[in-house]
């Protein structure tokens, strides 16, 4: 396993995937390098590009094969061509599969994508979609390496990045997709940490830029998601150490929402002039607005940009509709709409939790990224306490960030970065504290993949490793033993099964409370996570909690095979939690009276729907 020549970093993004490598045999000279991914970009045309759009398109009957050099009779396409077709034939394309992996309201292994697809399409699950992207990356690697004949991708040391906000089940499913793709040596790495590693690789003087006591806030706003993380620097026995101390919830809000908002504004103006736009044109308008927006945000002297909608037919002249995007539109809608300068106590609107069963993706109710940031900094105000001492890292009831690392396509815009920094400085500067500094980041599109590849060197002593166990504490729901009231369901108590910060090296935690399992049946338990409760130890019971404290996740399930026991028997078990070297939470059920020493059963984190139930 350690004969692997390369560490391969894979960014499995919501809108794009990227691939980077580090050649371990190069020793001190080793540097991360991006690998271009060959993909179908047009019917019958293949190109190697730095990004692989996360889309899968299914050919229609009669469309012919979407062949690749390594599979000439393929009936589906992954990448740029699929993304094009997503605009043209949305019903036949899978997109945002990654967002579905975080959706606790659906069975993530069920064949549900594309949502609303026509009958001739064989749907696949979000897990299988992830597998498809990984498979494509493997095949593309083999094709690109032909000249050098390097061993297959699946035999290398693989590091796959996941959002820090991914819960235990989403991580498990990502690993499942990796194993399905034939990968063996896989580790998960959190995206903000990968971004920080990319920064460390680019800045060999990083020890001068991060001092003990500093907290680095990583702000990642991509096409579809917004993620916040905090990493603290401390000194331990004279050496600098980095610890990931806080993560936020996964927020479905990003650049795509911004482009749609602009398209809506321009669309309204065109409608007022008497132009009617159909669905295709509205989609094309969002795309056109993106370009105009980028030009306005990158040059202060530009007051407005034309936004042209080409005719759909061949009569281009006279058939083109032209709208206008003004600086005011952009500043109002993007800067004030998504990054308003709000107060530190601003609260984002939240839709009432509709219970677990939600069909569509849970898009953020409030579009203001700064409000979500304020909430994160408030909720995590105490995150630095343990490491930095009493009150360490807190200022005015907020987590006190010293520097900021930006990541994600949206933050390529200097104006957006300025606005975020200005807002942060409003909050933190109230007591004359120093303004936050922005760490000069690497390429926001490729930093995560590069950082993941570079992690292969970090594991061997290069740079500095970011520590931190689970970013959440996990809880199992048990029925309260209080006397039952007829007609009312007994209340649930949440029992901590894995404490915050449980690390790979830590001894496994065993829950003192017993749970009852029925032999031969899948017994489900409610499952919760908290990014805020840091002091609970295994066995702590909570009778009451706020929505901010505990978030309900997919139920977990224990199935005891009958062997040696009678089906239907009631068996008391204890739960044991540990973190695997891969980076996932392992929950096991240990019977109080094992049939054989060491008998234990794996607890399923993302409940698999029984085929019989469908």
């Amino acid at each position: 396993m350690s004969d692997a020549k390369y560490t391969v970093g894979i960014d499995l993004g919501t809108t794009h995937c990227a691939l980077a490598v580090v050649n371990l045999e190069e020793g001190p000279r080793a540097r991360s390098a991006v690998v271009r991914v060959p993909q179908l970009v047009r019917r019958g045309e293949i190109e190697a590009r730095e990004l692989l759009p996360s889309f899968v398109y299914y050919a229609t009957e009669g469309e012919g094969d979407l062949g690749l050099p390594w599979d000439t009779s393929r009936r589906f396409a992954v990448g740029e061509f699929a993304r094009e077709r997503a605009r043209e034939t949305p019903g036949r394309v899978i997109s945002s599969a990654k967002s579905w992996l975080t959706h606790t309201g659906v069975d993530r292994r069920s064949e549900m994508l594309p949502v609303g697809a026509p009958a001739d399409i064989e749907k696949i699950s979000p897990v299988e979609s992830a597998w498809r992207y990984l498979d494509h990356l493997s095949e593309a690697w083999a094709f690109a390496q032909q000249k050098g004949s390097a061993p297959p991708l699946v035999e290398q040391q693989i590091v796959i990045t996941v959002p820090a906000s991914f819960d235990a089940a989403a991580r498990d499913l990502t690993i499942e997709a990796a194993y399905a793709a034939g990968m063996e040596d896989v580790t998960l790495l959190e995206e903000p940490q990968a971004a920080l590693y990319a920064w460390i690789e680019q800045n060999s003087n990083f020890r001068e830029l991060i001092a003990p006591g500093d907290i680095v806030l990583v702000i990642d706003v991509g096409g579809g998601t917004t993620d916040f993380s905090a990493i603290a620097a401390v000194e331990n026995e004279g050496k600098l150490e980095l610890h990931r101390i806080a993560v936020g919830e996964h927020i479905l809000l990003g650049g795509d929402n911004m482009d749609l908002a602009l398209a809506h504004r321009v669309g309204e103006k065109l409608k007022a002039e008497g132009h009617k736009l159909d669905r295709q044109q509205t989609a094309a308008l969002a795309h056109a607005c993106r370009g105009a927006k980028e030009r306005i945000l990158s040059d202060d002297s530009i007051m407005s940009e034309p936004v042209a909608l080409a005719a759909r037919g061949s009569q281009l002249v006279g058939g083109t509709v032209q709208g206008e995007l003004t600086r005011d539109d952009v500043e109002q809608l993007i800067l004030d709409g998504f990054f308003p300068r709000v107060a530190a106590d601003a609260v984002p609107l939240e839709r009432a939790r509709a219970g677990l069963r939600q069909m569509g993706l849970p898009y953020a109710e409030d579009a203001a990224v700064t409000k979500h940031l304020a909430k994160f900094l408030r909720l995590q105000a105490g995150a630095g306490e343990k490491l930095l001492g009493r009150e360490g890292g807190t200022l005015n009831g907020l987590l006190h960030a010293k520097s900021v690392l930006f990541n994600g396509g949206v933050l390529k815009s200097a104006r957006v970065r300025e606005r975020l920094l200005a807002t942060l400085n409003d909050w933190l500067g109230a007591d004359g504290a120093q303004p936050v500094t922005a760490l000069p980041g690497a390429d926001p599109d490729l930093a995560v993949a590069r950082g993941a590849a570079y992690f292969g060197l970090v594991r061997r002593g290069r740079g500095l490793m970011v520590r931190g166990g689970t970013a959440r504490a996990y809880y199992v729901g048990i029925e309260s033993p209080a006397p039952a009231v007829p007609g009312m369901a007994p209340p649930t108590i949440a029992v901590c099964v894995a404490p915050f910060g449980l690390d790979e090296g830590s001894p496994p935690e065993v829950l003192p409370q017993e749970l009852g399992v029925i032999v031969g049946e899948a017994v489900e338990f409610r499952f919760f996570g908290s990014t805020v409760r840091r002091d609970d130890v295994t066995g702590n019971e909570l009778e009451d909690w706020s929505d901010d404290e505990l978030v309900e996740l997919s139920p977990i399930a224990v199935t005891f095979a009958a062997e040696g026991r009678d089906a239907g028997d009631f068996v008391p078990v204890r739960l044991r939690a540990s973190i695997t070297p891969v980076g996932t939470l392992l929950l096991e059920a240990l019977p109080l009276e094992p049939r054989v020493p060491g008998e234990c059963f794996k607890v399923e984190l993302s409940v698999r729907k029984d085929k019989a139930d469908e």
Partner: protein
Amino acid sequence: MGPGTAEGALQLLNLLQREGRLVDFLQQEVASFSDAQIGQAARVVHEGCRRTFLRYLEVEPVLKVAEGEATTVSEGFDPSAIKLVGNVAGGAPFRGVLRHKGWRAKAIHLPETLGEHDFRILAPAEIEL
């Protein structure tokens, strides 16, 4: 790619049509339209074609001198790369004013095509269901 090879040329036209609607633009009679209408279409064509250019071609000036500046052409110059106009007499070196810096295609990387590919299709007919 030798002279008269239609395939590469057709493929490039296909790309320029796909990204920049160039064939639509050239196929249309524009005399009866206003400058504003032609201008609006020209923006679309320019944006898309330019993107295609930058992606698939590397084009550089033949002479890296500002147009309007004096320049000297030495002996042994390539007459297909540098054209002399005006008061041309005698031999090199020639001294004159650069009117057009020229263009040279440094590189062209057209996408690889797979299998049967009808290069004559510059744009498929589009039917909405």
